[in-house]
């Protein structure tokens, strides 16, 4: 990592980039109300790599969608920096996502008709933003895609596809990157590579990253792990190890 980085404090003590307060999300499914989120308060700090964990149905994906402005919470508020994103209209949310947020999904991250390079540049082009060629080259080299830039996604392995997605998310140095099970479909070696990129970019580029995962090993790459159950934040671990996370998780599911 050649990028210079000035780290004055531990990432967890840095000012929060994303702040959620009293977040609830209720679904109406045929008369019965399901509380996907039942009042969540959580902060994510600049330069921190945070994992959100929880059993299936704990609401972790819903939380991420609400934080990212993809979904609208039933009540509560979400701030990105100084901007309150809850209550924003769709058009403004689109601009916010485009300009200030990066995304990495589990699979089908890429548009099949665009090459790797076109996929990486897509958000900038949608935003008609100039891309810093030095940063582009740096990121491409870091994720090791230099000789794959002209390939269509179908010609890339799963790990390579995810690296394209990581490069795309990081290119514009968004205020926060959301990753939804980014290693869910990968073999363990490719998964480890992706997680290492994410961890390094948090450390070296001061990139804020929020990752949803159910894999304790994946979570162990993060600076902090928050645990969700039944739509509530129930536990939190700093500087986690895989064993520690597994143990907490088992306790939650018991």
């Amino acid at each position, binding site marked *: 990592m050649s990028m210079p980085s000035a780290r004055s404090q531990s990432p967890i003590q840095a000012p929060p980039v994303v702040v959620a307060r009293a977040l609830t999300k209720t679904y109406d499914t045929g008369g019965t109300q399901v509380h996907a989120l039942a009042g969540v308060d959580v902060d994510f700090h600049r330069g921190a790599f945070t994992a959100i964990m929880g059993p299936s149905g704990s609401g972790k994906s819903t939380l991420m969608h609400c934080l990212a402005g993809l979904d609208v919470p039933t009540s509560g508020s979400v701030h990105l920096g100084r901007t309150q994103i809850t209550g924003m209209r769709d058009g403004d949310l689109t*601009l916010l996502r485009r300009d200030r947020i990066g995304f990495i999904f589990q699979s089908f991250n890429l548009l099949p008709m665009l090459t790797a390079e076109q996929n990486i540049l897509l958000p900038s082009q949608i935003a008609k933003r100039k891309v810093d060629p030095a940063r582009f080259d740096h990121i491409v080299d870091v994720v090791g895609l230099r000789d794959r830039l002209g390939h269509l996604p179908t010609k890339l392995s799963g790990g390579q596809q995810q690296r394209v997605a990581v490069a795309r998310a990081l290119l514009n140095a968004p205020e926060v990157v959301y990753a939804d099970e980014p290693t869910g479909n990968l073999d363990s070696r490719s998964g480890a590579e992706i997680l290492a990129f994410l961890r390094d970019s948090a450390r070296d580029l001061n990139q804020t990253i929020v990752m949803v995962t159910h894999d304790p090993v994946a979570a162990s790459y993060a600076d902090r792990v928050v645990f969700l159950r039944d739509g509530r934040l129930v536990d939190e671990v700093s500087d986690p190890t895989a064993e520690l996370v597994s143990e907490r998780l088992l306790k939650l599911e018991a």
Partner: protein
Amino acid sequence: MLRTTLAGLRLHKARYVTTTLAILLGVMFISGTMVFADTLKASYEKSVMGSASSVDTIATPEIPEPQDGTWEDPEPFTQEQLDQIRDLPEVADADGVRQGPGLLLDSEGRAFSHVPPEAMAVEEVTRYEITEGELPDSYDEMVLATTISDQTGFEVGDSVTVLDAEQQEQEFTVTGLLDVEVGSELSYRGAFILTPEAFASVTGAEGYHEIDALAADGTSEEDLATAVAGVLGEGADVKTSTEFGDEMAAQAGASADMIRTGLMLFALIAVFVAGIVIYNTFAILVAQRQREMALLRCVGAKRGQVFRSMLTESFVVGLVASTLGVLAGVGLGMVGFRFVGPLMGEDMDVATVISPTAVIIGLTVGVTITVFSAMVPAMRATRVPPLAALSTSATAAGMEKGTGKLRAVMGILLFLVSGGIVVLGLQGDPDSSAMWIVAVGAIVAFLGVVVLGPLLVRAIVGLIGVPLRHVGVPSRLAVDNSTRSPRRAATAMIALTVGATLITGYSVINATMQESIAQELDGKYPVDYQLSPMLDLESPDAEGEGTEETPEEVGGTDLSTIPESVRSDLSSRSEIDQVFAQRSDSVDSGDDRIANDDGTVPVSTYVGATVGEEVEVDVVKGDLTDFGPGSVLITEGRAESLEAGDTISLGDPEHEFEIAAVVAGTGMFYGVNLDPADYEQVVPEITGDSSVMVRGSDSASSSELREAVYSAVDDHPTLNVMSMGEMRQQFEDMLDIAFYAIAAMLGLAIIIAVFGISNTMALSVLERTRESAILRALGLNKAQMRRMLGVEAVLLCLIGAGIGVLLGVVFGWAAISATLPNIVFGFPIGQVATFLAIAIVAGLVASLLPARRAARTSITGALASQ
């Protein structure tokens, strides 16, 4: 299995909405045509049946076999024959119908049409029934055929002028209207009924054109007919009223059947396009439901069962859509008859005819085309291996693989074959059979487009994509999307190509005809007015070279030529710059190299004009400057092996002439053209001019010129004055009406194709739900999303229409140059621009619903479901 199929159908019914509409529209057109034509036929038959039932036997003189290609008028029955019939014991009463050309003047005092209508006189026993008012019972009363009344505006109570045999004007009051049967001579020539006394004074014609008889008590129609036939002998055509009615009904029905055939042609085009749309829909559905099919195979369904399941599905869709289509068609036929019937002179008291055939044909065609179109996709469905159910790849994963060299080779081969056929069609003299050769060439080229379609889509999108990519991200994505499944895109677009080719082809033919006419009329010395004498339509081969239209003699006065006084009167007027005349006749010739079978040769001359200047001519062989006294011009067809410099003889006594030049036969040149002085030598009796051409002076306004021309012919009401401007306008109007009618008929095929494109887009959007969600997550807003799909649909439509326009221009031009000689190519630039504009609008319309759906998809929902 059936239950699974039906359950699947219920689940996916939204996906079949547009397919259903496509089938429905096609079937609607077919059934509508049947109902319309059946009702029209019933209405025609009703009107003619009524007219024959009031008498028992109808006798008409038999039309003699044509001699030497000319039709003789039939010999009318005599008074004596009528009296003999009246004396028959089988006859209760009998009367004759007199008929002869009568010159009727319109409200401006000019002869009605340039073919005189038939004046008639009927007595008590007649099959003619008056629809409104009464038969004339005093000398100054008349009944007008509705056809004349419609064209002139004369109504019951109006006063109408008729020229009698001495060319004197006589006034008559209209007391009633006569509805003549559709398709008969009376209906297109027009007719009016006078009292026998007035008839005799107007026409001077003798004898009866028809004898109608009533049977005595106890005598059957057949016995009566036999008895009448016995009196009239050879040369009479005697029918019972039932036979006569049936025959007329068959004639009238034939014209309804012609309309049916014409409409059916367009209906079949619409159904063909619907077939393409259905094929594409099923192909896409099979691709999307691969896992579903595989799962069926996994749980034990055999290939045959999967195949049958798909066919059942298409059968149900086809049946439902066709049933709705037949219902809509019945409605269309009824509405069509309500609106179009009155224009065809049919009254509305006929009940709509819904024949079982109309229903069965609609259902059969609809279901067959659906099942047939679904056949190939269903075959493909059977090839899905059971393992596909377990594979994690989603349906949209694979991009279609490259579309092979074989395809390119086949496509190019087809184009070459088509080119060869067209070249073949253009060889030799233009005639209508060459047009069919060109049509075959067009079909082969269309197959070439079908085969090359995917490559064409990719190539064209690659080309127009270059600038489009720089417009913005939505356009760039649209360009990429449109080539993702080239085969799918090609099929969608080809449906549109069909309609676009046909419309453009016709529009090129139309423009070329207009251009050619304009070119001919605007020659170096444009003629503003042309005067011609009355025509008689009774010589059917009037257009053939060698036989000029035989001018009619009405009541003994010669009206077949234009008196010379008219020409001198015209030349004396200051508004008129130039007047020249054509004289023509037929002379005897002992020269059998040039003479017709009857030993005559048509000759003509131009008086007051120089051939090669005012009168344009195409010289084939020889030199026009050699033409003068003592020499002639001869048409190519008549000259055969004769060359310029050869000598021919004409006239009786014979005169010898040297051929100055061989020229192309045109409306201005036929037979042998002579110098005016020679013409006077050869033609013994010259009565006047055959036609007079007038060119106005530049200083005279068109109304002044018109005034001058009309006042010169004021004393000659039978002369037909034709303004070239008006004629051209009429001709263009006629062509335009034909164009709009054909465009409207093809419009349905185009609407169906647009449905197909919309459907393809909608199904693609369904496939790309997750992609849309990612794009939205990455910051593409709803408007951009809609724009992306809009551009994709417009691209498809433009390519489809563009290829159609190209094919249409090439084959339209080829068709008309193979059919007609001396044409000037006209490119309907305005219309082509309109088609392309319509294609853009159609693309936008087609993308409306799919785009709405794509933009409204919930991002989180799409991301979650995979």
